[in-house]
């Protein structure tokens, strides 16, 4: 086991991929000389050179599409988009090309691209750098959407994503980069299933990414009140692991979903619906949700904190569904 940060884990995963496969290269804004907006790729330029650690102009649609073309041409690109807000400039390429070319070509072509982007609020970066748009991407057939919420997944999901013949999007919550954990660098993880991060009996707390830590903290505090919380980390936002979700809720008979996206039309709405469709008769209480407030993320800290899911709000939601 090795102790490392989430940021170092992601870098280590990229380094390994670059060493193992000459087709792999990293491309994005300031990934090279600058070392990455969040310092994830720091040092890789010296090790692999400017062809494979490729700085791009500020042209999200252009370089994301170039990544798609390079994938069609036999490469295994990792495209980094600084934040998911900027990825809206790539959305045409992701949706209209990456996600559809296999289908439009009747299965003749596939697009083995990995697109990484930072997501989430909490750093006072205001309303154009702080949103959580992974739920939107999870709407799109033809792509796989990952949200590594642990250091281990940050280290291990990339290899599985690169091995996938179809486009994979990886959302890295900005509040996780400095977190540390002991991990197994050689571990291989799947990119299909959700994972139970804490076993419990009374309520299922279903979450992912940057909210996982909050859910675990809430579960710990609730344990001291005698409420046994199961924490399910979705890990893969598309396709959702329905079996794991329903198995947990069938056991606990109650569910609270924590999603940093906005509540309306959200991933939390999708998870809620699947529980209702597949497990309605097993429920003992209405499903509750903790999401971001329906406001562009504000700059001042007290307002940003109030807009994002918090441990206190999670605890309050759990109490409401267990009737305590």
């Amino acid at each position, binding site marked *: 086991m090795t102790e490392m940060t989430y940021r170092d884990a992601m870098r280590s995963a990229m380094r390994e991929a670059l060493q193992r496969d000459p087709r792999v*290269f990293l491309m994005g804004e300031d990934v090279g000389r600058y070392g990455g907006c969040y310092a994830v790729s720091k040092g890789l330029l010296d090790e692999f050179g400017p*062809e494979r650690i490729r700085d*791009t*102009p500020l*042209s999200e*649609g*252009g*370089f*994301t*599409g*170039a*990544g*798609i*073309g*390079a*994938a*069609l*041409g*036999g*490469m295994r*690109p990792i495209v980094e988009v600084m934040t998911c807000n900027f990825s809206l400039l790539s959305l*045409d*390429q992701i949706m*209209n*090309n990456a996600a559809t*070319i*296999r*289908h*439009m*070509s*009747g*299965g*003749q*072509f*596939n697009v083995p691209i990995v697109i990484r982007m930072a997501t989430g609020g909490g750093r006072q970066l205001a309303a154009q750098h702080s949103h959580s748009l992974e739920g939107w991407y999870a709407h799109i*057939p*033809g792509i*796989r959407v990952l949200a590594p919420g642990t250091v281990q997944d940050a280290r291990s999901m990339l290899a599985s994503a690169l*091995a*996938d*013949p*179809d486009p994979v999007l990886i959302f890295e919550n900005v509040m996780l980069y400095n977190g540390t954990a002991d991990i197994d660098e050689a571990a291989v993880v799947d990119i299909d299933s959700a994972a139970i991060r804490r076993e419990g009996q009374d309520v299922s707390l279903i979450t992912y990414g940057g909210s996982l830590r909050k859910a675990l903290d809430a579960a710990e505090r609730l344990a001291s009140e005698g409420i046994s919380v199961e924490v399910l980390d979705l890990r893969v936002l598309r396709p959702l692991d329905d079996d794991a979700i329903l198995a947990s809720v069938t056991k606990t008979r109650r569910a609270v979903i924590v999603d940093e996206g906005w509540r309306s039309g959200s991933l939390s709405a999708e998870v809620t619906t699947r529980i209702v469709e597949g497990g309605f008769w097993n429920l003992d209480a209405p499903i509750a949700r903790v999401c971001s407030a329906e406001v562009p993320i504000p700059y001042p800290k007290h307002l940003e904190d109030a807009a994002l899911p918090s441990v206190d709000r999670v605890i309050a939601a759990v109490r409401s569904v267990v009737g305590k």
Partner: protein
Amino acid sequence: MTTSAKVRLNRAHCVDLLRQMVRIREFEEKCAELYTQEKIRGFLHLYTGEEAVAVGVMQALGPTDAVVATYREHGHALVRGISAREIMAEMFGKQEGCSHGRGGSMHLFDADARFYGGNAIVAGGIPVAVGLALADKMQGRANATACFFGEGAAAEGEFHECLNLAALWQLPVLFVCENNLYAMGTALERSESETDIHAKAASYRIPSEFVDGMNVVDVEAAAQRAVTTIRAGEGPRFLECRTYRFRAHSMFDAQLYREKAEVEKWRERDPIPRFRDWAMAAGEIREEDVAAIKDEVAKEIAEAVAFAEAGSWEPLEDLLKYVGAERRA
């Protein structure tokens, strides 16, 4: 008809150029007919009038080069070597089509021909072409990628982003602007502050030229020059082909935005009779060649329609196919 060409204009080549243009013309006319019979549905964008562009450019490409085209791509697909029968079956939505019926008129694909669509987002294929060229360059392959788009694409951000990227990274891309003067119904001078499209490419330091897109020999000559330099590792080239579509934008277009007289004036420059008459006067093509082409093409298209008619519908239980790999690593 003058040529600045280093094009080898022997009889066989002249006959082939004419044959390819006639194939496209007749294929498109048949498509229009089949559309009125509701055999072909959806949007249908015909290439009639612009044949010299696809035929001329494609002469410069070899089998390992790549092609990215637009939603007006039947002609490109035909000249690139996708069979008329597979294209027609695709138009019908039959599973024998070149995209298994899933794409239709706007999304023709073929892996063997390295034909990457059939892209119906204006300028949406340009980044893909740049990426294909990047892959070729990174893997040391001396291929070129030909990227076709209309002049309407020059108003899109992806066009400018990609010209910059291709020039910055010196990628082996041949950008081919098919300037037919109208982005759907919007005339060039109503949408561009600078109507000289090839000048935009020059501003990205991409060697750029314009050519009479109604003259197949000029187009071929320019494409050959460009591809030769691209293969030599000299980076991208930009070719603006000035052309005109004789038919409507799509089958739903009443053409309120242009005068009939303008269409008629351009029809006088129709690339097919123009080249045919020139080549016959030059003694390269004979009456019997013209007659033979007519017969061959009629037969090919009749056979393509019969193939499409006889094709089968994909079973409903296959609806969710081609969304992701059936087996992952």
